[in-house]
């Protein structure tokens, strides 16, 4: 069994960079072992059937290998980069299968919207700050952010999980995200 262990963000970035630099198979194996199974969990939690989640998780890791040279640690951390790849593949799959079909935000951004210098500078601080901010949220707020992020019908699931009437969920979501925003916007 795989055990629960936390992922070291800097190590992840180094692994992706090693793949980009020299198609390092050992680095890919290590990255695959850490992130492949987590990508599968992410996909299943966002409502993807297990066999499809397996397929998209494999596809995600294949794209990681192929696009490693596009990874830029100054723009996003490796886990964030892998998250956006998995997210876009999930959206593509949904679209091909004619379900309710969110549109992938990433493709166009990758092609055209290069960050301004300010945005790039911020990127290197962003990851650590976001992790710290998530840790500062109350348990209820962290649950709200997590379900807003992963759930297909967030309000219903937040109501269920926290035992809240549906009518109060909207304001709780607003409060939790306002808190997150305040923490994120504070100077580091």
């Amino acid at each position: 069994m795989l055990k629960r262990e936390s992922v070291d963000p800097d190590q992840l970035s180094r692994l992706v960079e090693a793949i980009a630099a020299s198609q390092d198979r050992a680095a890919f194996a290590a990255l695959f072992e850490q992130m492949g199974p987590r990508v599968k969990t992410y996909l299943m939690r966002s409502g993807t059937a297990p066999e499809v989640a397996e397929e998209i998780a494999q596809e995600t890791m294949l794209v990681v290998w192929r696009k490693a040279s596009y990874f830029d640690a100054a723009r996003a951390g490796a886990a964030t980069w892998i998250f956006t790849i998995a997210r876009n593949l999930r959206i593509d799959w949904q679209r091909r299968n004619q379900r309710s079909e969110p549109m992938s935000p990433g493709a166009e951004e990758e092609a055209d919207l290069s960050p301004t210098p300010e945005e790039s500078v911020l990127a290197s601080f962003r990851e650590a700050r976001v992790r710290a901010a998530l840790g500062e949220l109350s348990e209820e707020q962290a649950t709200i952010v997590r379900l807003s992020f992963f759930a297909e019908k967030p309000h219903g699931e937040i109501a269920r999980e926290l035992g809240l009437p549906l009518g109060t969920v909207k304001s709780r979501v607003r409060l939790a995200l306002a808190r997150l925003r305040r923490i994120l916007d504070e100077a580091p």
Partner: protein
Amino acid sequence: MSILHHPSDETLLRFAAGSLPAGPALVVASHLEGCAVCRNRVAQFEAVGGAMLADLPPTPLKADAFARVLARAQAGQAEKDTPEGIFLEREAPKKLDGIVLPRALHGCAIGAWRWVGPGIRVSRVVVPHARQANVILLKVRAGRHMPAHGHTDFEITQVLRGSFRDGGKRYGVGDVAEGDSECDHAPVVGEESECISLAAIEGHIRFRGPIGRLLQPLVGL
């Protein structure tokens, strides 16, 4: 262009999470093109996704998963990357009535303006691979009231030209207005010019008044 009204944090979070439906996501993508503040916010929310991903418990992949991926990786140096998004075509900028449309709309089929009432025209936007998404361009004459309406679910609008006022706020070019099931409104277009906006509607829209009833069957929402 100074943007005063942005999508809500919840909308940007769902956009970053990939759970915003295609129509509203198109409007958000169009807003992001001109709004560095929201691009930064989306990047933060994507980092939230990365942090949560790194923190998830693993679900084991099939025993041969790594071998299969590695084989494909090594065999497939020549294999073309599958497109990850729909905006890969490099088209000339699409224009409408002299406005360069947001790049987010470039892959979409945009219908002709149809008259739906005095001073109001609508054009249907068909999003590739999401044809059921309800997205319209709306052109309303200067000073005119837009049809009064409410929604069963969610409406998000970005101004592309001109301005409108709604609920005491003025929305100019680049601004985004969101409405949900609690909102029932009749926006008024500014006097300075006609207003062209891009709107995505989730669920159903309920028009009131004679123009609204004209609009209802034509917009088909």
